[in-house]
């Protein structure tokens, strides 16, 4: 793209249309409609069990790993419906990376952790792999801390470093979207702040969807916020509006901490 769009004109990268999701007979998501805007951070907030993680896991079809659940409605991205039965899940998951609550270092060296996804994409040229590993580690603000011990086991890193490693690993395969499932809730405040800082910087490259219990975090880093309750979308809007002049009474009460 030759010009940076102003914040108000960000285009929709993903649109969720009439999305319902069922675990067996139990409907967990109820008619969700909302956009995910390109090159922005969207926060999903709401009390425990409201369906925000379930929604996040619809984007990369993680639910398909488990039996007895099904989707209705559409999630549109790049002129296709992610929820189509024939959707190539391996392709889809390489376009939408995911970072989990607990860091998930693979039992191999720091370097091999990042190179793992590149191998999947059949990128094997050594110097290209080396450059991409460095780029991903720099993007995740981890490079300076690990550049002298790339061959050491990733399991020896601290929790915060492991989480940034997980992020770097997702970034290495050049995804369109990064999905964060409470990615900082298990970390100390300093590690958490480092990741937030990195996420804001990453906005120029990737679109991010963030599930968080931490409302201050949602307010600090996200451009758009969606409040969910009992499987429904209560309100979606620019983060500023959601926190300062919400349209719904429930949103006002939730952001003020009256329930949750």
């Amino acid at each position: 793209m030759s010009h940076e769009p102003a914040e108000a004109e960000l285009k929709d990268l993903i649109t969720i249309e009439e999305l319902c999701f069922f675990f067996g007979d139990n409907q967990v998501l109820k008619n969700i409609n909302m956009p995910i805007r390109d090159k922005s951070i969207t926060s999903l907030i709401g009390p425990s069990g409201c369906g925000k993680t379930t929604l996040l896991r619809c984007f990369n079809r993680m639910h398909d790993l488990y039996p007895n659940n099904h989707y209705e409605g559409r999630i549109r991205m790049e002129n296709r419906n992610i929820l189509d039965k024939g959707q190539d899940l391996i392709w889809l998951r390489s376009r939408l990376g995911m970072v989990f609550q607990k860091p998930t270092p693979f039992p191999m060296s720091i370097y091999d952790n990042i190179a793992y996804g590149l191998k999947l994409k059949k990128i094997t040229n050594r110097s290209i792999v080396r450059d991409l590993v460095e780029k991903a580690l720099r993007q995740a603000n981890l490079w300076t801390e690990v550049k002298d011990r790339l061959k050491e086991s990733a399991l020896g890193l601290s929790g915060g470093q492991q989480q940034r490693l997980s992020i770097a690993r997702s970034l290495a395969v050049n995804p369109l979207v990064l999905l964060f499932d409470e990615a900082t809730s298990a970390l100390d405040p300093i590690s958490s702040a480092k990741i937030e800082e990195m996420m804001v910087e990453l906005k120029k490259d990737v679109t991010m969807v963030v599930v968080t219990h931490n409302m201050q975090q949602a307010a600090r880093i996200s451009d758009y916020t969606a409040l969910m309750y009992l499987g429904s979308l209560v309100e979606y809007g620019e983060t500023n509006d959601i926190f300062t002049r919400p349209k719904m009474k429930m949103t006002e009460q939730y952001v003020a901490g009256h329930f949750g």
Partner: protein
Amino acid sequence: MKPHSGRLWVNYLALGLATACALFGLGLLFLILYDIVSHGLTSLSISLLTQDPAGPLGRGGLKGAFLGQGLLTLMAALVGVPLGVLGGTYLAEYGRDKKFSKVIISLCDLAMSLPSIVIGIFVYSILVKPLGGFNGWAGSAALAVIMVPLVMRTTESMLSMVPWTLREAALALGSPYYQVIIKIVYRQAASGILTGILLAIARVAGETAPLMFTSFNNNYFELNLNRPMPSVTVSIYQYAGSPFDAWIGQAWAAALMVTVVVLFLNILGRLLVKVKKA
């Protein structure tokens, strides 16, 4: 009288009883080990490993039996380890939470506690009788049958201990499931699976009953699996029951060797787990 002295007394009684039972069991074990070591060491010589069997008065050895046992165990491991590991992989990964897998796991537990002589007779009826005689293949098969449920069950439990989120993380990168298993789950569980394999080998290395019905024994050096194979454990059984001092001595020495090998495999297995944790 202090308010808790009654309970304290019961506590000492229980502790004392438990300690006494433990010491009794351990004492018996040390007695056996002492017996094997003291008798075995007096008869142990290099000729045990280098000489063919001799008459009751000559100075022979059990070279053939050691080689035969090694070959039988190796052949059993070649079949039993892949079958066990792949079976365990199915149970923990593809067949996870399926009723079928739960039935197989229960059957594994049953097979593990089956007297090994039953397996010997089973293999006798399918690989010895129809083929017209004792043979090495049957011996290996019997040992493999003992190994499979052991390896399968340890593989299954080691893989199940790998946190599920690790698989999700790899799948979320766009990795096909078989690659997640091979490159990540196996790697994470490697030392545990290897320990299971070593313990299974140690277990079959000391088996006698299934071999008596299958590979039987052979007084000569034999590497042809179509013929009866000599093995250390069956030789111990036969020599120990003989009236000749030289043979009885060799049986002790061979028993010591088997004990040392099994002990070594067990220690190696435990070390592997320790290395992993460090």
